[in-house]
């Protein structure tokens, strides 16, 4: 390679020398612009960033020639035979391309590059389909670099994104806590869909499954934004499992102008992830290691100890039976038995039993390099995420290989990604079992063996009756069994991109991508597992179970894009035009068998039979979509920009009469500061106003809603012939949901760049919401899906950032940032079927209905996240009963679901971040605080641990003893103590008493880092170029107005990351 290069430059040298000799005399006097006729033998230089650090591996080229080099580890470069007054072009990842014209005879130069995120006007917005300079783009979009995100949360890029971007919200899942195998539920600018499963009329909130299936994740979370990875539709799962070091940038597209090119998939916003592309130059090896320590956060638990619980149980009457003397005696004997245990010192802290400090590591290695024409990069990643519950974790392997070839006008690249992720579920079971466990039970016997059944039988103890609460098993026992419980997914994808620069103005790009995602899971529970203790009567043959599932999700994408950019005088026109097609197919099969008596009979085939489940379950989903867009942007004199985007989308999910959907968006922008009337001043330097509006669509619904399908009856036949029936009315007119998005944005730079502000106000009106409509049963159908509802979201995002200190000489940098996002939601139209659902949720006769939690209710004029409960005046000091307010204002002791009123809203009014970023020499200190204000929450864990607590079988909150009503005159917050709070009249149903403000301030991340100076001896010796060490701590503290047991099924954790990265 080097030989080749030398030969080329050698040739050129001879040619240039000859040219110089012959023309020297003529040209020396005229001093004309043909600068290439004169050369400077060697131009030496150094490339530094805006912080003054040298940049190694930056590409330096001479414009208009083939002269090219990369900077060495000390940032220096040398160019031979450079034409005089040539323009040097320098590029480096994360920095804006810098072009500097050499002065006559200049042979030494220091080039300073500015990091691209710091420059407001030069940003290129990449919406995944086309790139456009921010000046020619009117949409609301925000880009974050991979480094920025990594510094916030090195182990979870989605959490980092939610910290940085106020429009992104992650639904906090109290039950699943910090389970490493749960995908976050993510949404941009609020929800546009009713949180409703339309089957069977039951409303449930969606939980995404971890299977990487493009369609099913959207079906389960219809508010999920579209995810685009390097130009192709991807899944949240893939981003979640991706090595954070590979991410070059993430762009969040919010309004219609930014997203309409995606047509019917755009309504929930788009997250565009770009990975790092190989750079030309010397082979570069980047290695990053990160150690992640997770520590469970149990501070929210206030459970009773052994003595307290026994006392609470006694007071609640667990150990007495006034109606039956025989039982009474027996229960008292049990009390004595348990009291003896307490007295002998048994007081197990069950909460810590399944908990550990999880130490995980992430290794990331990438090698890239190549000449200008052929470049490559290979990155390898191993991540071992360890959860705080023993045995839980997530292991990921990743390999990514990119090869690109560039010739004069053609660029070809191919990228292969292979990934494998394996998520282990803890054998210890749900964490809630440990918070329920009685502390007067011993986990192990005197010999140290784990106890399976805690208490001896009554017969063994000489007590006539059985123990109150029944037989208690120790779920910790299962941890000692040889069982399997894990899910995994293997992904493979290959993308090919071809880019042809036809001329300076036109570019044609084509891409084909194939991805295959194979999820699976294995769950084996031997007969000895505690879940089978009470099923013993069913017979040994059916004990033990094994569930295996296998899936395959394929998608093929293809697209062609054409870009046209032209500048005539003060006019700039940028046009992009493209067509894309996508076909997805996903299927899965689940087989469950039973009858595996021993833990060494641990294979599917060793099972006795199928038990009660007689056939495998299978799902299959096929979708096809087609989308074409055109987007034209026109800019006049850097002052005015107008942008129009149109899209036509088709999908197999739409009704057969409505297969193609049109979408459009338009936007204008005005750079106020470029106007003549705008006087130069010290306060405002830069103001840009953007206004956009447009329609986008949502197609996150099941395909069969619009297509008539036959279901074959395979259990039965009609005289040995098959029979098939149509089960539901397929609405051939079913349409995509439409969201009209409008956005007004202002960005400004004040005080000479000391303060940068951004403000966006938006409204989103979703129409044609797909809802079930009940029809007369004589039509032969129960209900059908139609475009019936409408919701409205509106809100704003505001961000301010300020580089307070920027002292290059002393090398001190300090910047502060603050952002806030607000949105509110209102239902504007509903179908009568939803009214029926509301009514059903208020039923007093349905025994299946659990009123202990506020049930969803959707009403026009209210938000979708409204909390409906019966207003309460608290506990009557005289009787200990709760006093409710009826709709007519009268007071009552009787809880009636029809008295429910809107008493809160689950959606926080404001959410945002306060951040500080401090750099001194090599040191970095970052802190990001996130906050949420103005929302409410039904404190379910409080109800479940204090009032609706069944003391017969579960442990309770210590307030059971201290703050519950005992005698007339007590002014307390909680009702009187009973043995079984879930029983009948005593049960506490949805009441305003437990609706609490859900405001918090949390230290989302704190990072301390140090970048070693390149001139250190050991750095040089190891040939390292930018060794960096950092410690990130997530969730250090949290101040919240609501005290709940966070992480009921899996505890929340605090994490510390220690990272080291370096380039060779």
């Amino acid at each position: 390679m080097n030989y080749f290069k030398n030969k080329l430059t050698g040739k050129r040298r001879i040619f240039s020398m000859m040219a110089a000799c012959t023309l020297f005399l003529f040209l020396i006097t005229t001093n004309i612009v043909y600068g290439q006729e004169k050369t400077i033998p060697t131009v030496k230089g150094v490339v530094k960033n805006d912080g003054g650090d040298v940049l190694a591996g930056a590409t330096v080229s001479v414009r208009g020639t083939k002269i090219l080099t990369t900077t060495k580890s000390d940032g220096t470069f040398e160019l031979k035979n450079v034409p005089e007054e040539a323009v040097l072009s320098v590029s480096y990842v994360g920095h804006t391309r810098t072009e500097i014209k050499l002065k006559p005879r200049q042979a030494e130069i220091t080039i300073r590059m500015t990091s691209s995120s710091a420059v407001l006007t030069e940003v290129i917005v990449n919406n995944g389909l086309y790139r456009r300079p921010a000046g020619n783009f009117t949409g609301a979009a925000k880009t974050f670099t991979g480094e920025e995100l990594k510094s916030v949360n090195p182990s979870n890029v989605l959490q980092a994104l939610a910290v940085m971007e106020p429009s992104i919200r992650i639904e906090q899942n109290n039950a699943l806590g910090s389970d490493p195998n749960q995908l976050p539920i993510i949404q941009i600018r609020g929800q546009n869909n009713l949180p409703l499963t339309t089957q069977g009329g039951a409303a449930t909130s969606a939980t995404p499954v971890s299977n990487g299936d493009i369609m099913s994740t959207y079906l389960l979370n219809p508010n999920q934004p579209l995810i685009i990875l390097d130009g192709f539709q991807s899944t949240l799962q893939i981003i979640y499992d991706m090595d954070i070091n590979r991410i070059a940038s993430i762009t969040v597209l919010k309004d219609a102008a930014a997203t309409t090119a995606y047509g019917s998939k755009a309504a929930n916003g788009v997250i565009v992830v770009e990975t790092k592309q190989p750079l030309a130059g010397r082979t570069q090896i980047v290695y990053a290691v990160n150690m992640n320590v997770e520590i469970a956060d149990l501070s929210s638990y206030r459970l009773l100890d052994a003595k307290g619980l026994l006392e609470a149980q006694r007071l609640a009457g667990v150990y007495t039976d006034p109606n039956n003397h025989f039982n009474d005696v027996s229960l008292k004997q049990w009390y004595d038995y348990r009291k003896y245990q307490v007295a002998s010192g048994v007081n197990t802290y069950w909460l810590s039993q399944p908990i550990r400090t999880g130490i995980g590591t992430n290794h990331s290695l990438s090698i890239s390099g190549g000449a200008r024409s052929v470049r490559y990069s290979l990155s390898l990643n191993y991540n071992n995420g360890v959860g705080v519950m023993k045995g839980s974790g997530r292991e990921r392997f990743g390999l990514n290989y990119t090869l690109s070839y560039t010739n004069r006008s053609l660029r070809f690249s191919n990228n292969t990604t292979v990934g494998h992720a394996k998520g282990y579920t803890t054998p210890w079971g749900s964490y809630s079992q440990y918070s329920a466990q009685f502390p007067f039970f011993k986990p192990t016997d005197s010999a140290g063996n784990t106890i399976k059944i805690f208490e001896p039988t009554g017969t063994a103890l000489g007590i006539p009756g059985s123990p109150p609460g029944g037989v208690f098993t120790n779920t910790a026992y299962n941890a000692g069994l040889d069982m399997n419980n894990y899910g995994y997914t293997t992904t493979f994808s290959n993308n090919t991109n071809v880019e042809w620069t036809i001329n300076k103005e036109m570019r044609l790009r084509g891409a084909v991508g194939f991805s295959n995602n194979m999820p699976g899971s294995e769950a084996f529970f031997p007969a000895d597992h505690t879940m089978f203790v009470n099923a013993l009567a069913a017979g040994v043959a059916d004990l033990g179970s094994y569930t295996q599932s296998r899936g395959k999700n394929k998608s093929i994408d293809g697209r062609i894009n054409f870009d046209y950019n032209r500048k005539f005088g003060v006019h700039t026109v940028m046009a992009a035009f493209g067509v894309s097609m996508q076909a997805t197919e996903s299927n899965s099969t689940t087989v469950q068998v039973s009858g595996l008596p021993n833990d060494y009979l641990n294979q599917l085939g060793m099972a006795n039979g199928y038990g009660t489940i007689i056939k495998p379950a299978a799902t299959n989903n096929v979708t096809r979509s087609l989308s074409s867009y055109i987007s034209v942007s026109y800019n006049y004199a850097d002052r005015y920009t107008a942008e129009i985007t149109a899209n036509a989308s088709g999908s197999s999910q739409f009704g057969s009469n409505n297969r193609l959907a049109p979408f459009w968006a338009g936007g204008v922008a005005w750079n106020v500061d470029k106007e003549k009337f705008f006087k130069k001043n010290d306060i405002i330097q830069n103001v840009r106003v953007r206004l956009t509006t447009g329609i986008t669509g949502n197609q996150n619904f099941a395909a069969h809603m619009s297509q008539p399908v036959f279901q074959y009856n395979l259990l039965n036949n009609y005289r040995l012939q098959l029979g098939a029936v149509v089960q539901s009315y397929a609405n051939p007119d079913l349409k995509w949901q439409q969201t009209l998005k409008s956005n007004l944005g202002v960005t400004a730079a004040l005080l000479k760049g000391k303060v940068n502000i951004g403000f966006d106000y938006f409204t989103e009106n979703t129409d044609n919401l797909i809802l079930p409509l009940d029809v007369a049963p004589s039509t032969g159908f129960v209900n059908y899906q139609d475009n019936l509802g409408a919701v409205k979201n509106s809100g704003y995002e505001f961000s301010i950032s300020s580089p307070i200190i920027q002292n290059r000489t002393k090398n001190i940098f300090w910047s502060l940032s603050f952002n806030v996002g607000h949105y509110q939601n209102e239902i504007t139209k509903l179908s009568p079927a939803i009214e029926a659902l509301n009514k059903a949720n208020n039923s007093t006769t349905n025994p299946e209905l659990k009123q202990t939690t506020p049930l969803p209710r959707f009403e026009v004029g209210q938000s979708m996240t409204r909390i409906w409960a019966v207003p309460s005046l608290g506990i009557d000091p005289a009787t200990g009963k709760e006093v409710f307010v009826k709709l007519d204002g009268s007071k009552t002791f009787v809880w009636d679901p029809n008295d429910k009123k809107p008493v809160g809203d689950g959606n926080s009014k404001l959410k945002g971040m306060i951040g500080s970023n401090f750099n001194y020499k090599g040191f970095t200190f970052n802190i990001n605080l996130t906050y949420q204000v103005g929302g409410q929450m039904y404190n379910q864990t409080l109800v479940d641990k204090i009032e609706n607590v069944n003391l017969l079988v579960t442990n309770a909150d210590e307030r059971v003893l201290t703050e519950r009503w005992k005698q007339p005159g007590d002014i307390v917050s909680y009702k009187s103590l009973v043995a079984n709070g879930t029983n009948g009249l005593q049960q506490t149903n949805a009441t305003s008493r437990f609706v609490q403000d859900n405001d918090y301030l949390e230290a989302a991340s704190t990072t301390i880092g140090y970048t070693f100076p390149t001139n250190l001896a050991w750095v040089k010796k190891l040939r390292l170029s930018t060794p960096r060490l950092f410690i990130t701590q997530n969730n250090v503290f949290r101040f919240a107005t609501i005290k709940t047991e966070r992480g009921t099924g899996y505890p929340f954790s605090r994490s510390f990351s220690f990272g080291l990265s370096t380039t060779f």
Partner: protein
Amino acid sequence: MYNRGFKFYFLSAALIIVSLTSCKKWLAADPPLQVDENIVLSTEQGFKEALNGVYLQMGAKTLYGRDLTFGLMSVLGRSYDTTISPAIANLYYQGARYNFQDPELKATFKDMWNNLYVSIANLNNVLESAEKRKTVFTGNNYNTIKGEALAVRAFLHFELLRMFAPSPAAAGLNAVSIPYVSKISPYAVPASTTGAALDLCIADLKAAESLLSQTDMTTSRFTHWAVKSLLARIYLYKGDLQNAQTYALSVINSNKFPLITAVNNDWMMTKEHVFSLYSSLNISTDYYKSVLNTNPALGFTTQNQTALYVTGGGATTDFRRAFLDPTTGVALGNTIMPRKAYATATNLANVLPMIRVTEMYYIAAECATASLDSIKATDLLDSVRVHRGLPKYTLAALKTDSLNIEIRKEYQKEFLSEGQMFYYYKRKNLPFASLPFTKVPVVADASYVFIKPE
């Protein structure tokens, strides 16, 4: 350079035009676990499968699989005299009392209504699709499919009308009855009057009559002869006795359904079926066991067995007496089980009779009685009696009133636990006090009209 660029612009534009024209096809993806209608109904076999689907649906537990035959409908029709405990089988207890306001009974009615209309919607789908895809059919198959779908649609509507609308005897032909749904749509059809609904049934059946072949003697599907028999049944219900008699006699005189002389353990008398619904053996045994074999153990006492088959015009030689199995009484208290619905090697209990040829004899006899032709009536009844091990009537004994009583008794004996008696009582608007074998008193506001869910 420019030319080159524009060439590509046109090339890509052409590409897009091509893809847009073919995209309609590309966008029609089918979900594989269910089968797209376009695939199922692209062959004749698919249309047959769609009709089979309806027959299978009709075999559901709350429909003909149990409750419209030997289950609830036979409790209402007094085919059993078991004392039913409300704690064990509230549905049948309330049924025996005609307490149609009972929530469980109402829920069952709703289930019947909904599911029968689901079947009707499926038939309408078959009819509409057949109209659109005439080209997939060969020979006479279009007529056969269309005729069969029309006939079953009329059959199901008539069944709904007999359940959910008052009988002409009670409320005339202008009373509000049921919606007659003849096309697929999410919009409800208003309920017709009884007369209009019956006329729509008749119109569909007349159309089917000319479409269906007279030589097809399959009894598991709705054939030409089933159409004729159903017309006789409907005309009788409507009170058009002349047409009823004509159609009944045309079935009898076709000699295609000879009466049997011995049962040979085929208690369902499958050879005499004009239309019967097949259920799979496992399922029918399951359903049978759910009410007859175990609690509530519906059955008949031996005393009433004698009262029904021997006393009066009967005789111990009537082999239908063995519809009830006297050997079972000891095991299950004082009642004995109907043997009909119990499958054995020879008894095809999974063949549920919907229309039997003997009913044609009874319809013709009833019409003859009404036109005071007692000789013809007696003759028709005797034709059946001699095939049941009974002697002929002595002519002098039969007058109009007694003939009608005899016809009712023959219905009772012949159609024991087939679900037909309720319709007989309803058609005759028999006072509730006159219902036979009543163990628990009928409620004060008893009615023959099932409660509509809409």
